Structure formats: C-alpha cells, structure tokens
C-alpha cells in the first residue's frame, strides 16, 4: 500500500538525493514534537524546492543548524520536517582586502572564524558554543556576546542575505559592501526572526581585524549598587572597552570584567585610567584576569536544571533589577546567577525548589524588567512549563503588524509555526 508518507519520501529523495533524507529519530524531536523526516538540501535551490514541496503539501518545517539553540522559543504547533543546513557549510568568499565574507548558513561559527583568522580577521562576535553553533542559527536567534559592546549586534554586522521563502522563492537583499541603502533591509528582518519568515541560506558580513593585543581586568565590588556605579562611570568615561560585563549570584559578590583590545601600549594607558576610576569610587583595584571570564554566559548552561532567561533593561537599571531579583529570590527560595552586559542585556540562570516557585519567580522578574520598558525572554525552560509561561512575553502594540509580516512571507504558517512571539 502506498501511503502519503512514502510519496513524500520519494519526492524529497528526488529533490535532494536519497542519501540526504531520512526518517526522524527521537533525537530529532523539537521540544517534544517528533518530525517525520530530516532533509539535508545541498544547495540554495534545493532548500527552496524542499520548502515549496512542504508548503504545497501543508507540512510544517523547522530549519536546523547545529541544534544548539533549537529549544529556544515556544514549542512548535506542528512539525513534519527538519530542514538541516549541515551540507551548506562553506565559506563562499573571504574578501579579506574588503573585510567582508560570504558564508553559507550551515557553516559553524568556529570554522568561519578559523578561515577569517588566516588573514588576521574575525566576525566580531562571541556567540554561545561557536564549535556547534552555525551562522544560520546565530542569525535566527540573534545571539551575540560580550563583544557587542564595541562592535554591535548581528544586525550591525550583516550586510546581505540570501533567503528561501516557503513558496520556493530565493531572494537576496542587501549586498557585499559595507554601505548600502538600496531596498528594504530584509537581512535585519530575518535576524532574530527564529526562522519564521524564511530560511537563511547564506549571509555576508562585515569583518574586523583581530586585535594586536587584548587584556581583561576584573574588579570585585562590595554591593550591586557600587558595581552599577562603576559600570556607569566606565560608560561615561573615554575608555573604549570591547566588552564590559557584571557577574553576580546568590553565592558570590559582584564582579565587573573589562576587556580592552588594541595596541599593547594603548591598553596599558587605558588600564591606568580604569584604576583611577575605580579608586575614585572607592572600589577595589582592577586585577588582571583570564579570558575565561568571557565564557561566563556559556557556563550558565552547565546548571543541570531550572531556567535561563535573557534580561533586557536600561544600562542604569541593573542595580534596581538585581535588588528586585534578590527580593524575589529570597521570597521564593530561588538560586540565581546573572551575567549582565553593561549595555543592558544579560543572561540569568534560575533554580527553584519547585515548578510553581520557578514560574512565580519568572513572572515577578518579567514585571520587574518591564517596569522601565525592559523585557525577560526565557531561553531554557522545561517544555511542560512553556504552556504556562509564554517565553517571549508581551510585544506591545506591534503584534498585529508582526502577524501581517508573517502572513505575507509565510501565509500557510509552514515555518516554525507557533514558536515566535504572540503564537506566530
């Protein structure tokens, strides 16, 4: 008996080759949803064709790179196919003299960095798990790291994109030059869209030189309020740190980490300046620290359970947020670790005695962050709890507009349905 499933399999195999389509295994499940097949297209055209077939057949598709952040977002409303970008892993062009690179979505971030380093360049970004994460994955989730302080986020680094739409269209926007305002900026729209509008097939980035030298200094502080004052004093100074973060937890006092890059002699004078700022505030003197401190964000994921959330507040609001966090934690007996960047983005790991306490804590902290326009987005949360806590939170008065955008790009909700804000 020929089932619909067999027809689908045959069709996919005809598109990408039988070697590149296989039945899904439990390891391919996304937030508890088991797809039917995993398809690995070998070209941009194949990506578009697979999408077109899926779209026409009413199948739901989840794009997948390294799979390191596949649990971010709400669980998919439905899932039939995983579209794996693993075969699209080439650095297509490193125009080192122009300081740009064009790379396929399935290329691992670490691989890209190795290629760029051959000419003393880099994608100026320290994402989570660069060995596993792919270019498409960091774009879809808008993951950036501590270097964002100086070099901006992915939206500031991406120059162009090739994207496949559910109806099989392949479209480019942007270009390969640093400066370009021709047409709408789809590369920014696709960045952080969690694969709900199209599948990013390749991207072009502006690059930065690898620094001649870099040094990191850490300062221990007695209170979060003093740490806040130090962060603001550094922001308001003429220092140019490439990264500036605050680490603190239930069990440890606040530490501020500062990274300088550039010419060694110039770093020395910035370090002196930092010492003066610390002394003026009555803070302890900065001590040279290991680069490992910049992996603090990643270390949060080593906690065996609980939630990890992204916090967005104003740069001057960290102390206020931490005060609220301490109150909530005490009341609900939560344990927490916060890695916050000076510019107002942080990651917070929370452990609670039970689910109820965790959910109550998340709601209270979302309200605290939201008091002055900030947000709390859950990144890691047990799937079962996502039915009771929307990982995204409120999106203000743009939800109708965002739904219209989704409707235009993906009218049949083929891509990652239900995973994004407001059930998009």
């Amino acid at each position, binding site marked *: 008996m020929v089932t619909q499933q067999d027809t689908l399999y045959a069709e996919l195999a005809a598109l990408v080759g039988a070697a590149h389509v296989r039945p899904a295994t439990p390891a391919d499940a996304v937030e508890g949803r088991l797809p039917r097949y995993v398809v690995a297209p070998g070209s941009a055209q194949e990506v578009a064709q697979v999408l077109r077939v899926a779209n026409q057949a009413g199948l739901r598709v989840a794009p997948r790179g390294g799979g390191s952040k596949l649990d971010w977002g709400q669980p998919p409303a439905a899932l039939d196919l995983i579209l794996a970008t693993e075969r699209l892993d080439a650095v297509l062009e490193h125009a080192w003299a122009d300081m740009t690179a064009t790379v396929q979505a399935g290329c691992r971030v670490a691989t890209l960095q190795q290629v760029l380093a051959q000419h003393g360049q880099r994608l100026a970004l320290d994402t989570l798990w660069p060995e596993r994460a792919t270019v498409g994955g960091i774009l879809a989730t808008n993951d950036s790291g501590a270097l964002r302080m100086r070099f901006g986020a992915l939206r500031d680094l991406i120059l162009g994109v090739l994207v496949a739409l559910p109806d099989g269209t392949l479209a480019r*926007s942007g270009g390969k030059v640093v400066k370009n305002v021709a047409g709408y900026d789809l590369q920014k729209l696709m960045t952080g869209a969690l694969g709900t509008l199209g599948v990013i097939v390749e991207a072009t980035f502006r690059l930065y030189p690898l620094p001649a030298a870099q040094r990191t200094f850490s300062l221990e502080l007695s209170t979060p309020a003093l740490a806040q004052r130090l962060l603001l004093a550094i922001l308001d*100074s003429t220092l140019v740190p490439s990264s500036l973060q605050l680490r603190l937890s239930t069990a440890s006092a606040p530490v501020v980490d500062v990274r300088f890059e550039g010419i060694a002699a110039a770093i020395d004078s910035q370090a002196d300046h930092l010492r003066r700022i610390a002394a003026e505030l009555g803070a302890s003197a900065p001590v040279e620290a290991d680069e490992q401190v910049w992996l603090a964000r990643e270390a949060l994921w080593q906690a065996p359970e609980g939630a990890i959330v992204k916090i967005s507040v104003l740069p001057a609001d960290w102390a206020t947020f931490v005060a609220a966090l301490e109150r909530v934690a005490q009341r609900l007996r939560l344990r927490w670790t916060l890695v916050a960047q000076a510019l107002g983005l942080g990651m917070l790991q929370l452990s609670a005695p039970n689910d109820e306490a965790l959910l109550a804590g998340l709601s209270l902290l979302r309200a605290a962050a939201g008091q002055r326009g900030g947000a709390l987005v859950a990144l890691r949360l047990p799937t079962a709890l996502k039915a009771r806590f929307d990982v995204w939170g409120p999106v203000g008065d743009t939800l109708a507009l965002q739904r219209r955008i989704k409707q235009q790009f993906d009218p049949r909700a083929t891509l990652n349905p239900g995973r994004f804000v407001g059930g998009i």
Partner: protein
Amino acid sequence: MIQQHVLAELRALLGEDGLLTEPEQLRTYDADGLTNFRVVPAAVALPRTGAQVQRVVQICHRERLPFVARGSGTGLSGGALPVEGGIVISLSRLNRILEIDIPNQRVVVEPGVINLQVTQAVAPYGYFYAPDPSSQSVCTIGGNVAENAGGAHCLKYGFTVTHVLGLTVVLPDGSLAHLGGKTLDTPGYDLPGVFVGSEGTLGIAIEVILRIVKRPETIQTLLAAFNSTDEAGAAVSAIIAAGMLPAAIEMMDRLSRDAAEAAVHANYPEAEALLLVELDGPAAEVALLMAQVRAICEAHGAWEIRVAQSEAERAVLWKGRKAAFAAMGRISPDYIVQDGVIPRTALPRILREIEALSARAGLRVANVFHAGDGNLHPLVLYDRSKGEEQRAEELAFEILRRCVEAGGSITGEHGVGREKQKFMSVMFAEPDLETMQLVRCAFDPHHLSNPDKVFPRPRLCAEKPGRYEPHPLERAGVAELF
C-alpha cells in the same frame, strides 16, 4: 484633487496656518534636494504634534489619499517628491527634543529635530550624535531615519540604523505602533531595522529614540597630498590592512579640491588627490596610530602632510570637504551628485573607468568620496542651457552600472527615491524586489505612504492563497493575555 470637505476637515484639525493650498505656497514643496524632479502637491499639512500627524494619516487612509512625509527637503534622490493630487505632511514643526538621558546614553526626539541639534544638546555632557551627513546643520532626524543617513564618520560608528533603538510610528492605516524601544533586543521582529531606510514608504515616525556616543578622548585629523588618486587609494588600503579603523577616511580629486578652494578657501595643497584621515579614541592609541598613518602615506608618495590636533585646526581641514558638493556651483552651472558604492579594492579601477567615461561623454566628473567604505560621490558637471542634461544623466547612470558590476551598490546613503527606481533592477533580480515588497504589503497594502518610490514596479498586495493557521494558544485567546 482633494475634495473640499476633506480640506475643510484638515483645516479644522490643523488651523489656518497648518494647511497650505495656495499654488504659490505649494510650489515651495514641489521638490527636495533633487531639483530636476518637480510635482506640486494638492495640499501641504503642517501638523504641530504627533497626534495631529496621526489624525491626518487616518483621514488619508479613509480617503485613500496618498501622502509624502517631508523633513527639511535636503534629500538627494527625490524621496520627498510629492504625489500628484496627494498631500505632503511636513514635520518641521515637530522639532522638540523630548528627553535626554545621559546615564543610559539615550535621547528621544521628534522627527523635525535637526541632526546637529542632537549633538548640540548633548555636547555639554561630553556626548555626540554619530551619524553626520554633510547636510547635518539643516537635515532632520526624520529624514535621516527615512534614508538611513550615513556621513563621513559612519566608517567607524555605523549608520543611522545603528543609532536608532526605537520609534513611535504612525502606520499608513493611521494606527500607532511602537517599534523597538529604549532597551535592546525587544522581543519580536527587528521592526526598527526594517523601518529605518525604508524611505518613507512604511509610515511616519513621530518620535525617535536615539543612541548617543561619548566624545572620544582625542581626535586627530591628517591631510595628505598625493600626485594621483591611485597613490591615495593604495594608502587607504594599506591603512585598513594595518588593522586600523579610522573614524573617517575621505578622498577628493583635483577637480573637487579646486572647487572647494574656490568656494571656501580651505587652503588645501594643489594636489591631484587629497586624503583626509581622522582617528579618534584614547590619546595613547591615537598618537601611535597617527604615526603609522603618516608613515603609510609617506610610503605611498604623499608630498605634504598636515595633522590637526585642535578643534579649530580640524574644522579648517574639514571645511573644504564638507563644502564640496555645494562648491560645484563655483565651477559648473549644473551638476548631478551620485552615490555609488564599490568594494574598496575596486577603487583604482573604477576611478580610471570614470575618467574614461567622462572623456567619452565630454563632461567633467569631480570625485569626492568616503574612501574607507568605498562610497563614491561622483559629481557630473554639465550645463543645462547647452542641452547637456540627458548626457549627464546617462553618464551618471553608467557610473552606477559599473559600481553594481564591481559588486557594489547604487546607493550608499542617499536612497533610491524616485531617481534610482529603474536602477533597482540592475542591482536586484525580480524575486528580490518582489520579496522586499512583502514588507510593504504588511505595512501599507494600499500604497498610500510615499507611493511609487524605491521599487521600479509596485507589487500588488492581494491576499495570498492559503490560510494563516493560528497557534492553538492564540485560538484559545491565551497568547493575547500575555
């Protein structure tokens, strides 16, 4: 034409001095900085508040009346060109700075605020607003947002979009939407990222949240004179290859140098190519790097080098460059400003091609450009009274075609507007343009907001086949509760 009762409604809303309908008043608004395109609008609205802007747009939406937002009208691509029979919404009266938040490095402004006023407002605290188009003393933030304006210093500091964190926007249906916000990474699609640079086609911003930047400890500017643009171009490449990121690298050729000299007497050396390199940052770093830049310039044939340290000395060096466009009037009755971008490495080749094209057309081309990011501003000089206009346009467009062929863009900061619509097809394939316009269909399905700009052919925004399947949570009304 607009019906009388609609005009009466607008007049009641905006007051006698808030609505212009007399032909001689309207003529003032028939063009922006690109004066060879002119359309007289049916009316000009001059609202004083964001709420009035919203009411005007609601009326336009109800009447299906096309509207064009306008700031100071300094745009160079015809982006603020009115629509025949439509209205212009001038935002010049929305000129308040609403909030200055120094600890968080944020400023909230209305769209009619002048670019330079933002820097002036925060300068006492040691900050500046980074995007600095040459027209910064007159152009508005609203216009900067529409065009994603750049300027000389975006090489290091990025464009307008890098500095816009949020916007309150009147959408083309008259509804209000807050895109982004004061904090970073607001959940959802990057709406500011797509709105900035959309050239007024997705709605009208009535409030803009800007990021300001701490003034660096030191700023130094170097002027170097070369015997050819090739030598100067090679020096630029060497500076970038040395791993430096100057705040600005500008180049002027002989013709633009002469024009600037005639206009503002900047006292520039008589060179075939001038290079301006500005470094900023911690003093120790700038001193070391400036020594390197000087050595690189000398190694590439610079025969005169001046370094300005003080604000006053720097202003003198920049004076000629900032005045370059306007200075063309000194050496030519008419000129076209173009805005192509090329990969920096293609610079010497493209400059030679421009020279050849210029000779073939029998028209002079002056070159002033942001050399660091490959953004050319070829100025095609011509005389309308001698019937040279069409030849000049053909030459300007041929230069743009070469930019695209070299892997570049038809516009780096001026926008597509009306002027370069047909050139979008040179740079993008049909599916690219169709896909971009899906965004327009989401924001403005009736094409009321600055219609017939940017794209060569408007996409019809019909309902596409297929059905949007709401998420189960959404159906249950749960998602709405959050």
